[in-house]
């Protein structure tokens, strides 16, 4: 019954998407402005169909309807309700359903907010592009990735998710956030395509989608960081970022997206960098599809990988189509993308944005190259090689340091050009802040040129951002914190905090491995830990061994290790004694022999790691602050599109 409902929902959504697409094409072909609104009806059909499908899947998951293949292979009766709910995005088909759902939310919201301008060719073409994406995804859901396949003889109980995916509540939030980011970039992409097709390459369309780009960017940032936090809390190795192909796949659109939200300011202020900005938007969306291809085709082995599927060729074809259309459009419109004006001096706001963009592009190039390089080499000469963390660390450190420098300098520079005297005067405070931070870091024991330089530049960035915020608040009160520049500077502070945490926890972490019996103690990097007692219990069919560890000055913590009968090796669940200064990360590395109370425990001291999450929170707040006044300016924002039409 629910299976039927779900299949029906997906079918309706597909029909709605095709209907909306057709009516838009007809309307555009007929040049009659009264026909466009029919598309709105079909979009409503599509959204409701998708809602029905999602609700059907959730009902099936929550009521343990194991006659559905998806439920039977990804859920069990004993799964807690929260994770049953989250199983929607725990495996391939469901995650595509979530993709479709988020896409529907965006398309619905865009068509609501632009419903009065729907006969505007730019808006119509943008909606048309989004609907093509919708048709593609609902087509996948209706055929090759059907989440509502049924079993003729349903099992009594399902197999359940990989245990790693059902032991932390972040699992319920992180993928959704990530998808809101990923999918959100469809909106600016569609407008970029529309601008290219209609030839309306002025800045109006950029202003009208500013808020959408920011929402997508903010969600992606927070989603990526939540994923990092999740792996830190769950995977048990004390790390949060492994340069894994799938992590890279989510990071790549973030890099190009970040480059865009900076360089678009130059275009809005000076009308320059048009080709570049369009390319960034097209690349960002293409990279989201490419990332989906990497994660869902079995091309690359990864912890995050969904089981290999037949979707590979389809996603690859879609990616190729996006590339061809994008490149052809930019080549075609090349002559109309002229940039008026020029950048007079490298020492100017636009000069620093340009530097920022080249650095981000280079950063993205390194990440992309490192991710796909093993594939390329293997197909050239059959060699298997790996590109891992040491490569990324080494290549990205200089780029990261240069980026921090540009980040600190940019807010101090004026548009057009900045004289040395003005810069020397403006940079004094921030530079003093950077020097102070650097000095403190060295006194606290930081070593190594790269890390110390990075930390010092982080201080410089904070100084520059605070200087801007203080001046802005003096002028405008609390409103100085809002708007793109205010919110942007708040986000810069967040990025610096994150950089502190990242640098300190990678460069200065210490670890020890101890074989302890109850009462024994061990110490690493000035932290003393005492093993108090062991508890060995059965949780249903799973054997759970828990060690109570007393971390001196922090209290008791109990890392655990669980042997699931359906899952080969035991899963270690770490326990972290967090503080503002450092984290004491405890994890059991082997399941003790039955009857023995000897545990092997790995203790990792990671300085400042908590600052990463705080930094992420600050970035999120910064994004929200940047969005606020745009909402107030809605009326005038709409006029931009309309008045441009008159040109």
């Amino acid at each position: 019954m629910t299976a039927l409902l779900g299949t029906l929902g997906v079918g309706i959504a597909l029909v709605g998407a095709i209907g909306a697409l057709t009516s838009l094409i007809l309307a555009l072909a007929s040049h009659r402005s009264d026909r466009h609104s029919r598309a709105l009806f079909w979009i409503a059909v599509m959204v409701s169909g998708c809602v029905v499908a999602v609700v059907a899947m959730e009902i099936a998951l929550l009521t343990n309807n194991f006659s559905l293949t998806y439920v039977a292979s990804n859920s069990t009766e004993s799964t807690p309700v929260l994770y049953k709910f989250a199983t929607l995005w725990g495996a391939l088909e469901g995650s595509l359903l979530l993709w479709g759902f988020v896409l529907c939310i965006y398309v619905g919201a865009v068509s609501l907010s632009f419903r009065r301008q729907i006969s505007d060719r730019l808006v119509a073409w943008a909606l048309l592009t989004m609907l093509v994406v919708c048709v593609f995804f609902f087509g996948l859901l209706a055929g090759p990735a059907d989440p509502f396949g049924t079993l003729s003889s349903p099992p009594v109980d399902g197999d359940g998710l990989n245990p790693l995916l059902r032991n932390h509540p972040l699992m319920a939030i992180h993928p959704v956030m990530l998808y809101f980011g990923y999918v959100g970039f469809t909106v600016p992409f569609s407008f970029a395509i529309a601008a290219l097709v209609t030839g309306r390459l002025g800045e109006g369309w950029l202003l009208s989608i500013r808020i959408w780009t920011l929402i997508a960017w903010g969600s992606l940032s927070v989603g990526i960081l939540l994923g990092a936090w999740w792996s830190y809390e769950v995977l048990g190795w004390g790390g949060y970022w492994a340069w894994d192909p799938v992590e890279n796949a989510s990071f790549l659109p973030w890099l190009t997206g970040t480059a865009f939200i900076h360089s678009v300011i130059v275009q809005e202020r000076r009308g320059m960098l048009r080709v570049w900005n369009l390319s960034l938007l097209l690349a960002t969306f293409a990279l989201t599809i490419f990332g989906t291809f990497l994660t869902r085709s079995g091309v690359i082995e990864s912890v995050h990988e969904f089981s290999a599927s037949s979707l590979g060729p389809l996603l690859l074809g879609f990616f190729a189509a996006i590339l061809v259309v994008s490149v052809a459009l930019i080549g075609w419109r090349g002559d109309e993308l002229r940039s008026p004006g020029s950048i007079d001096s490298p020492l100017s706001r636009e000069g620093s944005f340009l530097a920022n963009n080249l650095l981000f592009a280079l950063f993205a190039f390194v990440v992309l190259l490192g991710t796909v390089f093993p594939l390329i080499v293997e197909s050239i000469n059959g060699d298997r090689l790996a590109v891992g963390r040491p490569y990324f660390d080494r290549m990205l450190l200089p780029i990261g340091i240069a980026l921090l420098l540009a980040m600190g300098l940019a807010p101090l520079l004026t548009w057009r050009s900045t004289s040395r005297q003005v810069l020397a005067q403006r940079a004094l405070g921030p530079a003093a802040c950077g020097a102070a931070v650097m000095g403190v870091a060295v006194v606290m024991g930081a070593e190594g040129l790269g890390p110390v330089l990075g930390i010092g530049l982080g201080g410089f960035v904070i100084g520059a951002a605070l200087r801007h915020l203080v001046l802005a608040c003096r002028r405008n009160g609390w409103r100085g914190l809002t708007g793109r520049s205010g919110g942007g500077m708040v986000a810069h502070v967040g990025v610096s905090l994150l950089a502190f945490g990242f640098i300190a926890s990678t460069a200065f972490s210490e670890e020890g491995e101890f074989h302890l019996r109850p009462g024994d103690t061990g110490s690493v990097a000035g932290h003393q830990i005492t093993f108090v007692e062991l508890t060995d219990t059965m949780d249903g069919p799973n054997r759970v061994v828990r060690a109570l560890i007393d971390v001196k000055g922090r209290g008791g913590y109990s890392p655990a290790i669980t042997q699931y009968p359906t899952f080969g090796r035991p899963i270690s669940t770490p326990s972290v004694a967090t503080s503002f200064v450092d984290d004491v990360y405890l994890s059991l590395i082997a399941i003790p022999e039955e009857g023995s109370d000897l545990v092997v425990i790995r203790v990792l001291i990671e300085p400042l790691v908590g600052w990463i999450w705080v930094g992420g929170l600050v970035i999120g707040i910064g994004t929200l602050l940047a969005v606020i006044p745009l909402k107030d300016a809605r009326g005038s924002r709409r006029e931009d599109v309309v008045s441009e039409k008159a040109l």
Partner: protein
Amino acid sequence: MTHWSLRIVRIFSAVAGLVLLSFVLLLATRDGGNGSQSKSPLIGELVPQVEGVRFDGQSFDVDDVTSGWVLINFFASWCVPCVREHPELVEWNRRHRLDGVVISVPFGDTEKDARAFFVEHGGNWPVLIDNESAWAVAFGVLRPPESFLVAPGGVVVAKWQGQITADEVDRVVVDLQERNAVS
């Protein structure tokens, strides 16, 4: 924009498009997947050293038994395919009572669990504990179960990843015997 820079945009987009498309082609045409009988740098080499104390207390050295066929099996008590393939090892051992021997090495397992495994599932061939995992690394074992067939004379001739059957192993045995008979 001058004619010159327009051409640059066109050339750039054409080059970028071609590079990316050839990359797509490269991804589209690559093939994957491999059979259960796997490659290993060990094949054709002499079997690495395996010596120690059996579960029943006798000392054992693989070089003493290489006059016949040797099937070295890395397993773990928690590994489901290992449990499933165990009867096949028993069967192979029965077939080759005279000209072969199975050797089991626990991998990623405790000695206690491994002993319990043999008590439960049977099998009276040598089981050896791999101290410091030196053998596992020497054999390049990735995950249990993994099996290596050593031909009479001590050369490794085949490697299997995953569950095996007695027939599968014997196909290689018979194949080699026939080839030797011809030459």
